[in-house]
């Protein structure tokens, strides 16, 4: 996903990470959306109703999050919201892109909620600002 500029600030994710894997998009899709496969890498306990509108529950010891699947486009895009009890929700989206000999997997996570419009805009700016402020923040 490209970072957009001021016009569509709300679409800029707060967190965006990616990895390259030696696997086809179909293999990646299975690892992202099959409960047993998710438990190999995501968290020790994952429950997933693999349809749009289905529920997702992720538990890692005391850390428990639940949410709803927003997008379920086979071998391409998998998105859900999740939150811990009493905390704000985030939107998480995986995108799978075929590459020669493998795939690129990108994940974004952005807080949503009452302030969704204001949220989302500042990941890159904040990160930059944070760096420029680091001398103050460390103190």
């Amino acid at each position, binding site marked *: 996903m490209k970072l957009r500029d*001021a016009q569509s*600030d709300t679409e800029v994710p*707060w*967190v965006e*990470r*990616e*990895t*390259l*894997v*030696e*696997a086809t998009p179909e*293999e*990646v899709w299975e*690892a*992202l959306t099959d409960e047993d*496969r998710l438990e*190999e*890498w*995501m968290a020790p306990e994952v429950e997933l109703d693999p349809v749009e509108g289905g529920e997702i529950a992720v538990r890692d010891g005391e850390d428990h999050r639940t949410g709803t699947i927003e997008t379920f486009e086979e071998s391409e895009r998998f998105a859900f919201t999740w939150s*811990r009890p*009493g*905390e*704000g929700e*985030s939107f998480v989206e995986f995108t799978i892109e075929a590459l020669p000999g493998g795939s690129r*997997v990108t*994940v974004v*996570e952005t*807080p949503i*909620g*009452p*302030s969704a419009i*204001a*949220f989302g*805009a*500042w*990941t890159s*700016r*904040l*990160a930059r*600002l*944070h760096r*420029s*402020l680091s001398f*103050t*923040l460390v103190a």
Partner: protein
Amino acid sequence: MRAPAHRHVDSVFIALADPTRRRVVETLARGGTVTASGLASQLPMTRQAVAKHLSALRGADLVSMSRVGRETHYKLRPQPLDEAAHWIQMVSAEWDDRLEALRRSLAKRGSRAQ
């Protein structure tokens, strides 16, 4: 540690929605404690415009104010920014770990298939 970013950062982002205010924040970050006039001299805007932006930033708790004689001094309070930045750093690190685990899980499958 995650909750504060969700609950309190809203006003910070609204305050920083204005690019001019972000410049005011950056200038404050460099300048330590300054007056509105001092800030205006470093920015392409009037003292009145600076005062308006400082007021909005105070509303988001990003700027503190103190009286020194006849002057009003302003200082950046970076804590609200720190909460949001902390969330970003923490969640980025979590996804780096998970994606690495995903990569390993896929590699294991791949080598078994061969």
